[in-house]
C-alpha cells in the first residue's frame, strides 16, 4: 500500500512540475530582492557569515510556508482526501507519505540547490557542506509541523495568513539552530551540537506531527 501511495504522489509531482519549480523560483527571487535591498548584509564582506546564514534560513522558512498552502488543497477539493482516509488501512501511513513527498518536492530540492543559494548570499565555499547538512536535518521539521497547520486551514478560502500565524512560531527552534549551525561553520567552529539538536527536533516532529495532521484533516473534512 505504501508503494502505491508513493507511486501516486510521485506521478502527481512529475505532472505538476509547478509545485517544485515555483517555490524554488520564489526562493531565488527573494534572495535577489535581499541582495538589492540590503547590499550591506549580503554583498559586502563585513559581517557576512552571521547575516547570510540568517537570511538563507528565513527565506527557506518563507518558501516552505508558500508551498505548504497547497499541500492538501487539490486532494481536499476533489474529495480524494476523504476517500484516502476512509479506505486506507492505516491513515497514518497515507498522511506520512504525503508529508514525505511534500518534503521531497521542496525541502530536498532546497538542499540540492543550497550551494548555489549559499554562494549567492555570500557564504564561503567551505561552508557549503555544513549548509546542506543543516537544511537536510532542518527542513523535515518544516514539512512535518507545517503539515499540521495546512491540515487545519485547508478548508478555508483564504487560509494563507492564518497558516503563517499558526506555523511560523513553531518553526522558530529550527530557524535558530539552523542559522546558528551555518554561522558556526562559517566561523570555523564545531557545528555538530546544532546538527544533533536539529535532528532531534525533526525526529520529535516525525513522531507527533502525523497524528496531529490526521486530527486536523478530519476536522477540515467535516467543515466541507
Amino acid at each position, binding site marked *: 500500500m505504501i508503494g502505491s501511495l508513493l507511486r501516486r504522489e510521485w506521478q502527481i509531482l512529475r505532472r505538476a512540475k509547478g509545485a517544485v519549480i515555483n517555490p524554488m523560483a520564489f526562493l531565488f527571487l527573494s534572495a535577489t530582492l535581499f541582495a538589492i535591498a540590503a547590499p550591506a548584509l549580503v554583498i559586502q564582506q563585513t559581517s557576512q557569515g552571521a547575516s547570510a546564514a540568517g537570511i538563507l534560513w528565513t527565506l527557506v522558512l518563507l518558501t516552505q510556508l508558500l508551498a505548504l498552502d497547497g499541500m492538501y488543497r487539490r486532494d481536499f477539493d476533489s474529495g480524494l482526501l476523504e476517500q484516502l482516509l476512509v479506505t486506507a488501512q492505516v491513515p497514518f501511513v497515507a498522511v506520512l507519505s504525503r508529508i514525505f513527498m511534500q518534503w521531497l518536492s521542496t525541502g530536498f530540492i532546497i538542499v540540492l540547490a543550497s550551494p548555489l543559494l549559499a554562494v549567492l548570499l555570500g557564504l564561503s565555499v567551505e561552508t557549503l557542506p555544513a549548509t546542506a547538512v543543516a537544511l537536510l536535518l532542518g527542513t523535515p521539521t518544516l514539512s512535518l509541523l507545517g503539515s*499540521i497547520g495546512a491540515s*487545519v486551514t485547508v478548508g478555508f478560502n483564504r487560509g494563507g495568513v492564518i497558516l503563517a*500565524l*499558526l506555523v*511560523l*512560531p513553531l518553526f522558530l527552534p529550527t530557524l*535558530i539552530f539552523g542559522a*546558528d549551525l551555518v554561522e558556526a561553520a562559517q566561523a570555523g567552529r564545531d557545528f555538530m551540537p546544532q546538527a544533533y*539538536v536539529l535532528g532531534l527536533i525533526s525526529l520529535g516532529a516525525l513522531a507527533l506531527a502525523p497524528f496531529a495532521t490526521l*486530527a486536523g484533516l478530519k476536522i477540515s473534512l467535516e467543515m466541507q
Partner: protein
Amino acid sequence: MLAALKRLWHKLGSPRWFFALTSFWVSLLGWAALLFLLVGAVWGLAFAPADYQQGNSFRIMYVHVPAAMLAQSLYIGMGVAGFIGLVWRMKLTDVFIAASLPLGMVVTALALFSGSVWGRPTWGSWWEWDGRTVSTLVLFFLYVGIYALREAIADMQLRARASALLAMVGTVNIPIIKYSVEWWNTLHQPASFGLTQKPAMPSEMWLPLLVMVLGFYALAGFVVLTRMRAEILHREGSARWVGEWIAGRRAI
C-alpha cells in the same frame, strides 16, 4: 476517594452542574483577588525596600513577574483543556478555552509592556531582542494564531476541536521554543521565582511578590470563571434550567 474523583469527572461533563458549583467559587476568588492585589500592591510599592542597584524601578517586578507567569500558565491550561476536550469530548473544555484566550492575550501583552517599561531604566532601551522577551512575544503570537483560527471557523464544534488541537500542539512546542530562544540570546535576569530554589532576594522583597502572584492567579480564576459562566448561559440559552435561573434572579 477514586470513586469520588470519577464521579466528579463525570459531573464536570454537565455545564449545569458546573454553573451551580462555581457561583460560590466566583465570589470567593473575586474577593481573594481584591484582597491579595490590594495588600500586595501597597506592600510592594510602598513598603518593600528599594533595590541596591535598580533603585525603585525594580518595583515593576510586582506586575511583570505575575503577568509573565500567568501568561504561560493560561496557555498551558488551554493545552491541557484541549487534550481533555479532544479525548473525552467534554463540552466545558472549549468554554474554558474561549474564556481564557482573551485573558491570556491581555496578560501576555501586559508582561511585554511592563517588561519594556522596566527595560528602559535597567537595560537602557525600550526593546531588546532578549531571549526571554522573544519567547514571551512568540507566546503572544501563539495566542493570536488560535484566536485567528477561532475567528475563521463558524461551526462551534469544529472550532472547538481545531482550537483544542492547536492549543495542544502549541503547548508541546512551548518548552522547545522557550529553551532554544533562551539558549540563542539572553540578557534577562534569571527567573525571580522558582518552585525548587530559594529566591535570590530578601524576604521583604519576595513576600509581596508572592502575594501579588497569588492575587493575579485569583483574579485570573475569577475572570475565567465569570466568562465561562456567561458563555455557558449563552450556549445553553434554550435549556430549561437557564430560564429558571434567570427567573430566579428576576424575583430577587
